[in-house]
């Protein structure tokens, strides 16, 4: 490889690198740096202050709880769906398209649709009043339930698509062989199909979890003032309260948590994946 080619390569890369470094990496470092220097000297005090704050603890736990719950529900609903589409559906292309369509539709519209459905005059309320479960219509919105519903609908397509990706690669011969060797349908599912799908399940789970942890539109529209999550907290501190120090600390916590959880998921997947 000649020196001239080397130089050409560098020249082609440099504008992009400068752009990302200048507009993202430097601001990111400044963010971390300032969060450790609340006053002139280095200290963890902003972080200690935050972690001791009961309000922050509640918000943090709520974010974790809703994200984990939504990930679990997505896995539970996504697995059979992906399996059916990958192995038994006659209209696979169309099914995939119907999963992609909501992904391409704005999260604002998708969250808003639940405001129509779950609201006081919504179809769910009408039904519950009609069958006598509710005496009078009551809002099912602005609580953890509506947020979870919103999250699951928002990120379920990602889970389905990543699962279909791995399930398409499982040869039908394997389940046939398991059947021939005397395994029932359930046993061949749990001992053949499931272990081979774990990598897709993990990819999907990381997407759903990080998606829920960082989503802003859904908690903003379907959550209320007392169901704040980390992302709405960052926005509130930064834009409503203009407390940039607090906003920075919460932002750093968000980055660390999403990265930590993704790497834990990935490590677990490597351990349980039989072929990796």
């Amino acid at each position: 490889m000649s020196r001239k080619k080397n130089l050409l390569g560098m020249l082609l890369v440099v504008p992009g690198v400068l752009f990302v470094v200048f507009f993202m990496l430097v601001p990111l470092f400044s963010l971390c740096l300032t969060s450790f220097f609340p006053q002139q000297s280095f200290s963890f005090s902003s972080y200690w202050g935050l972690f001791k704050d009961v309000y922050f603890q509640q918000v943090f736990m709520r974010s974790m709880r809703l994200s984990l719950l939504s990930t679990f529900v997505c896995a539970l609903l996504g697995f059979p769906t992906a399996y059916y589409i990958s192995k038994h559906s006659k209209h696979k292309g169309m099914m995939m398209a119907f999963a992609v369509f909501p992904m391409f539709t704005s999260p604002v519209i998708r969250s808003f649709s639940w405001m129509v459905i779950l609201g006081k005059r919504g179809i769910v309320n009408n039904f519950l009043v009609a069958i006598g479960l509710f005496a009078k219509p009551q809002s099912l919105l602005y609580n953890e339930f509506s947020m979870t519903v919103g999250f699951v609908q928002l990120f379920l397509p990602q889970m389905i698509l990543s699962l279909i990706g791995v399930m398409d690669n499982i040869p039908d011969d394997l389940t046939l062989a398991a059947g021939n060797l005397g395994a029932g349908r359930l046993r061949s599912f749990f001992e053949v199909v499931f272990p081979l799908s774990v990598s897709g399940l993990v990819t999907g789970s990381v997407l759903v979890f990080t998606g829920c942890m960082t989503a802003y539109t859904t908690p903003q529209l379907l959550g209320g003032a007392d169901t704040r999550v980390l992302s709405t907290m960052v926005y509130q501190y930064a834009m409503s309260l203009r407390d940039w120090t607090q906003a920075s600390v919460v932002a750093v916590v968000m980055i660390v948590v999403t990265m930590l959880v993704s790497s834990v998921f990935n490590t677990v997947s490597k351990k349980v994946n039989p072929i990796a």
Partner: protein
Amino acid sequence: MKKHFGLGLITFLVYVFLIGPLLVIALASFSETKALVFPGKGFTLEWYAKVLTMTSFIESAKLSIVIAIAGTAIALLLGLPAAYALNRFRFKGKEFIKTLFLSPVLIPCIVLGFIMLRYVVNAYDLEVVPSLLIGHTLLSIPYVMRVVTSSLANFDFATEEAACSLGATRVYTFFNVVLPNIKSGIASACIMSVINSFNNVSLSAFLTGPGVTMLPIEIMSYVEYHFDPTIAAIATILMVATLGVMLLIEKTLGLQSVV
């Protein structure tokens, strides 16, 4: 088929859950009632007519489209040469540079918006439009890099060598040999990136200013105070546009290439 009845039923219900709410909105947009309800009453197109008279929506939609396309174009201008160089040449820190280009997708958008506002927009006193443009370019770079890198990985560089040894210049070869081979990859990257950018809320929420705003932000603030079928009408227009884009992708590139 009866064997898989249970699985089929779950799949059906999951799809009702995914698509149903969107249908509800579409149907509610034709309702004659003042408030947004489902099932609505009667049939009217007045809410669609109202959307067309609301300049705030029209203006913000225009800006959203311009920013999404311009941001993707700049991301392509920065990303395409970089992706080419990363595939074609050997130099120090290659892995680091690759990670760097993909990193904007790892940082939560809401954090990206916040640090852009604090350390770029406020620090250099930027106007709203250039700030949005920079932010949305950052959003698009990972999309462009990921797809272009993978289509370049499937390209046989021996073809390029052949063109060069037959006397074509490097630049000529790039535009006439390399580019035509990866153009469908580039097209699908651009479509994904434009859609993602158009729908973005958390980044734009920090960067829009009074009077200059993006469509999703405008819709969100409208929803906070109003609850009428106008929003349902806008949502339906956007969904029809999305379907149109999807059909276009299916006809030209195949939907499989973008997911």
